[in-house]
């Protein structure tokens, strides 16, 4: 699955995307826990950036949403355009 990071989260992680293999039926919260278990950098970044939002294939979703391996998941802090 493709995971995109934006803004403050992207900066803390030092990268804008990841590609990981996941089994269908997992929740976004499971995916994030897997990422946090990768190393201290992920853990720190996800702990430091507050109020993260999630989008699956460009639609806002809840952290408990289930995902499929072919989905595009985006994780980012609240938007600030305009």
């Amino acid at each position, binding site marked *: 699955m493709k995971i995109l990071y934006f803004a403050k989260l*992207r900066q803390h992680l030092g990268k804008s995307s990841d590609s990981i293999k996941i089994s269908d039926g997992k929740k976004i919260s499971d995916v994030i826990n897997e990422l946090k278990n990768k190393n201290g950098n992920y853990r720190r970044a996800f702990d430091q950036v507050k109020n993260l939002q999630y989008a699956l294939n460009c639609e806002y979703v809840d952290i408990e949403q289930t995902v499929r391996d072919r989905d595009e998941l985006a994780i980012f802090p609240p938007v600030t355009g305009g």
Partner: protein
Amino acid sequence: MKIYFQKESFLVQENFEKFSKVNKASGSIISFVGKVRPITNNKEVIDIEIEIYKKMAIIQMKKIISMLMKKYKILDYLIIHRFGKVKPQENILLVIVASQHRKEGFRFIEDLVDWLKIKITFWKKENYLNDYEWVEQKITDRKIFLTKN
């Protein structure tokens, strides 16, 4: 009915005149321009960097417009939002709307910008002389979301 997310700056007058010519039959044309403030939090802003998730921004913007077009009688609109580096006093956002009567146009713009601030995937980073700050979403903007939802 056009939406542009672009790095390049834009000229308000030129866009307004072109839009007015196309919409000769409308009774009202209103424009809104969002700009970079030179000072925020008592700090001088050197420039701001606007990040975009373009694919999602386009999808979400179309959804918002489709919702607002059902709510207000709008004849035409033009929306330009910049990303990349933008300097103080430069333009970030342009919304021009044509309608038969002014109230529809004013309300359309107000709602559109309110939704944009909480749904459209742009993020601003303000660069000051010696440091920087990621702009945080305002509580007042989130409240608007709750009342409009």
